[in-house]
């Protein structure tokens, strides 16, 4: 599956080694081999385990229909992921819109503000929110000092906290694809709409917005995929009370040692993400990522 042509070609004999194609496959071989043995094989084992541990069959999958705690966790995961995606897209759209309509200099500064958080450790970012949001945290202290509230608000260890942290993490990942799509929109279309008598809002709603939708949908699928399997931020800001699938899997393995359930949930996650990726690849050309096309 992973290497349809490679082994066949290298087996084809020394004479072929001289041919250019064979030599280029030799360059690809180390990475392909590493990935095949140490990445795809372990993932294949997870899928295999989901139907063989503890006993062969689909018993693990039957839990999806029968276990209330798994259903509750899946529902929490879906709800938080959807809300995070919607909020992220809304905020990302505003930033991307301002980015394409800014001078080169302002753009550079805005980009700095978008890219620096992207590369700062996710743990550090979750820790910063932890400091700000906890009961004795800076936000509650400020709110109480100014008399907005008398008692501290519950901002952490619930879905509010998880979502604040997640939106903060996902925003740069939402802004970049929307921006790259908006950049390709021909500004003359909007000028034409305005020239034909459309109001500013009308030109935005009927011309710019539809043209920018592919970027929004692409970014949405991407953010949703990352949200579904996100571990660090939900685990730290959810504090074990708001349980999403990644942390649930971790608990199954490292604390209660139920390999069957954990690998079944991992397989479900993998399948859902596979379907979403297939949708994404119909929508945007993933090869663009490599500078092609």
């Amino acid at each position, binding site marked *: 599956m992973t290497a349809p042509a490679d082994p066949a070609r290298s087996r084809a004999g020394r004479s072929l080694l001289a041919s250019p194609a064979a030599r*280029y496959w030799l360059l690809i071989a*180390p990475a392909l081999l590493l*990935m095949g043995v140490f990445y795809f094989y372990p993932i294949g084992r997870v899928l295999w385990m989901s139907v063989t541990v503890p006993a062969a069959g689909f018993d693990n999958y039957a839990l999806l229909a029968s276990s209330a705690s798994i259903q509750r966790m899946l529902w929490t995961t879906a709800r938080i992921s959807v809300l995070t995606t919607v909020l992220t897209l809304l905020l990302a759209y505003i930033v991307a819109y301002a980015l394409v*309509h800014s001078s080169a200099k302002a753009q550079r500064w805005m980009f700095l503000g978008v890219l620096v*958080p992207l590369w700062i*450790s996710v*743990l550090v970012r979750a820790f*910063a929110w932890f400091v700000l949001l906890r009961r004795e945290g800076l936000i509650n202290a400020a709110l109480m000092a100014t008399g907005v509230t008398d008692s501290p608000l519950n901002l952490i260890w619930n879905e509010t906290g998880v979502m604040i942290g997640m939106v903060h993490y996902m925003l740069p990942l939402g802004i970049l694809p929307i921006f790259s799509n908006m950049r390709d929109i021909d500004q003359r279309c909007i000028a034409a709409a305005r020239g034909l008598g459309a109001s500013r809002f009308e030109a935005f709603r009927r011309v710019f917005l539809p043209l920018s939708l592919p970027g929004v949908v692409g970014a949405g699928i991407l953010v949703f995929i990352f949200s579904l399997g996100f571990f660090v931020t939900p685990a730290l800001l959810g504090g074990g009370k708001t349980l999403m699938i990644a942390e649930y899997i*971790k608990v199954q393995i490292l604390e209660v040692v139920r390999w069957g359930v954990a690998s079944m949930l991992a397989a479900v996650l993998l399948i859902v993400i596979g379907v979403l990726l297939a949708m994404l690849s119909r929508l945007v050309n993933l090869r663009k990522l490599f500078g092609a096309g």
Partner: protein
Amino acid sequence: MIGSGFGNISIMTRSLAWAIICFLVLPITVVFAVSVTDRHYLSLPESGVSFQYYRNLFGSGPWLTSILQSFVIACASTAVAVVAGTLCAIGCWRLGSRASDLVRMLMLAPIMVPTIVYALGIYQFWIDLRLLDTYAGLIIAHAVTGIPYVVITVSTALAGFDPRLEQASLSLGASMGQTLRLVIIPNIMPGVVSGLIFAFIHSWDELVLALFIAGRAVFTLPRRMWDGINESLDPTMAAVAAVLIAVTVSLLCADAYVRSRRGS
């Protein structure tokens, strides 16, 4: 050209956008303020600035051990990822066939598949191979998940490289190895360096795999931070976070510098 329409968006949209960017940046800066607190708990400094927690950090055995371990693991896994990823990107670029396109797609898997799924598989695999809690185990896992970043940055650099230069080199009698070393690699160096930086940051920050396949002998920095946040409210954590931000920002500046040199 891009900004041909700028100026005609409302002040409100513009300030909203800046407010969102502040939401991105400002919360992170709070760790700098907390890291110089003079109190014994996570708080802003009250009667003065104190660097006791930085002294704590750099004078403490466990933290320094973790920093060193993370550094060794990040360097080793980055080296593997950069070599394998660069060669792979060059091979795919030259072949340009359907099969090599498929290979590049497969290389994206570690970015798209949640780490927790992979962690489960590699945990089982390492139990069999007795690689749990070893440097080799973590280095291999970080290397294969770091390859995509190198493949992406090097492929992007190659897209702007004229394949005829390679043909010229080969037809003038250079061997494949010489062509790689003297013609291709120097031309795509900025892409390779970017890939190196991203693969390094990937390993340096990685927590989920470290939670599963390491934990006693090998205790990386993210792993220690994870325990630090979950178990104690020691402001030393804030000092660690501040140092990490400084390291990341300087790596990004290095990346920007390399890119700007390519531009000139």
